[in-house]
């Protein structure tokens, strides 16, 4: 019996498990192989929708689905927390006391947010990286009557790189619509030398910021929040007063990966081969999605394009064949939409070799993003996205 174990039921874990089970269905049906997903909550959440709870009246209930309903019938689901990974014995221990053995291990454990690591973050700052936080931000925006809005990034890396810029642009547009723009300032703080990590995207978005009078502060790495003075301070020595503070919280990889020696502290990102997605030199362990240390966006789209590569490699080993050359090399492909406000958006499509060339912001890409958000559950986790990707 060959056991494939997938840790995590997010975009990457769900899709890779479905793709593997489809490829090795003969072996599963013959009782020669199993595919098991372990997920802590048994609930799949479409996280990109959180931003739209704050900025677009999204109903949080539409973002959640039972994980079981998204998985192929041949995939087993275990709802439990992973507490340890023992590489020598090739098994994973669970909080409930069970131990699961594996021959092939796929780590899709994602990233987690740690707002509590910055003093006063939870009282003073808003974010949109959880359902609750996004609802709280929406309430704060509803109550906002003008003043200084500061949007920033506490540290890198973080999930969905365009999101804080999108939020700054969307808040600015909302303030204009509500007649509050004249009474408000909008500031955007970037930890690096420009607005966005990828130069071509910075070149596209910086004029948008200028046009909308959003003040860009570069090299602003959040050091502290002074709750009494309502000031956010950077490591570089800058201080910004705020009336509404929106900060991307610090992110880390799963603690269990660090505890098990698979990912180095303090970040906990798995050292992942750029092309094969193997973790370190391990021939039977792969990573995808936010959990990796790849120099790419931590985004569902990345996991989406990585999953077929991992699936082909796992299936080839189970079936004792060579992986198909074309399907088993990850090229760094990522594709995501980027909202610029006023009902317009653009598209970022890139890979390791080719930086994005974002088209001029238009209504088309904004509608594309909304359409994708609404149809995510029908096309992505079950691996039905091929035809849409080819058309874009």
């Amino acid at each position, binding site marked *: 019996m060959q056991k494939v174990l997938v840790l995590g039921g997010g975009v990457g874990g769900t899709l890779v498990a479905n793709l593997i089970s489809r490829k090795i269905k003969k072996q599963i049906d013959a009782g020669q192989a199993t595919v098991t997903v372990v997920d802590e909550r048994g609930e799949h959440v479409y996280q990109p929708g959180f931003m739209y709870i704050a900025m677009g009246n999204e109903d949080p209930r539409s973002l959640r689905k039972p994980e079981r309903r998204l998985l192929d019938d041949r995939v087993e689901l275990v709802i439990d927390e992973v507490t340890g990974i023992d590489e020598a014995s090739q098994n994973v221990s669970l909080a409930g006391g069970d131990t699961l053995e594996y021959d092939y291990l796929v780590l899709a454990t994602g990233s987690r947010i740690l707002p509590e690591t910055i003093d006063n973050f939870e009282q003073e700052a808003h974010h949109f990286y959880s359902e609750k936080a996004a609802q709280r931000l929406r309430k704060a925006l509803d109550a906002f009557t003008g003043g200084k809005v500061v949007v920033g990034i506490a*540290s*890198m*890396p973080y999930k969905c790189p365009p999101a804080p810029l999108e939020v700054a642009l969307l808040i600015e547009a909302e303030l204009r619509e509500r007649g509050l723009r004249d009474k408000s300032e909008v500031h955007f703080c970037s*930890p*690096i*030398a420009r607005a966005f*990590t990828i130069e071509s995207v910075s070149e596209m978005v910086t004029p948008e910021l200028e046009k909308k009078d959003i003040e860009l502060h570069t*090299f602003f*790495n959040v050091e502290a929040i002074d709750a009494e003075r309502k000031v956010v301070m950077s*490591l*570089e*020595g800058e201080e910004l007063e705020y009336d509404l503070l929106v900060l991307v919280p610090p992110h880390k990889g799963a603690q269990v990966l660090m505890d098990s020696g698979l990912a180095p502290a*303090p970040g906990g990102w798995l050292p992942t081969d750029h092309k094969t997605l193997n973790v370190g030199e391990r021939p039977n362990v792969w990573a995808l999605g936010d959990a990796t240390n790849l*120099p790419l966006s931590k985004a569902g789209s990345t996991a989406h394009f990585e999953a077929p590569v991992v699936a082909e490699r796992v299936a080839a080993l189970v079936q004792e064949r060579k992986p198909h050359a074309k399907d088993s090399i990850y090229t760094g492909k990522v594709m995501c939409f980027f909202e610029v406000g006023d009902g317009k958006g653009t598209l970022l499509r890139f890979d390791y070799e080719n930086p994005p060339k974002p088209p001029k912001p238009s209504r088309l890409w904004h509608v594309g993003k909304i359409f994708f958000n609404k149809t995510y559950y029908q096309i992505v986790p079950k691996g039905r996205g091929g035809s849409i990707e080819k058309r874009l």
Partner: protein
Amino acid sequence: MTALELETTPTTTIDARGSFCPGPLMELIRAIREGAVGDTLAVISSDNGSKTDIPAWVEKAGHRLVGVFPHEGYDEIVVEKLK
């Protein structure tokens, strides 16, 4: 001249080769946060952007750029933490 030939050996060396912008800068920022005033930090980076981004950040953050030392396939950027 390399950092090793400087008067002082770096307190910390960060080998960020293979990491892309802004990885090396973020690694330096983490080391600066964890280090003590007077520490010398050497960042080894194969990303071309580091030799401009890191000195620009060092200037804004008020630390001292000891030097940028080119090597075959990578640069060594040495910084002294001043505050």
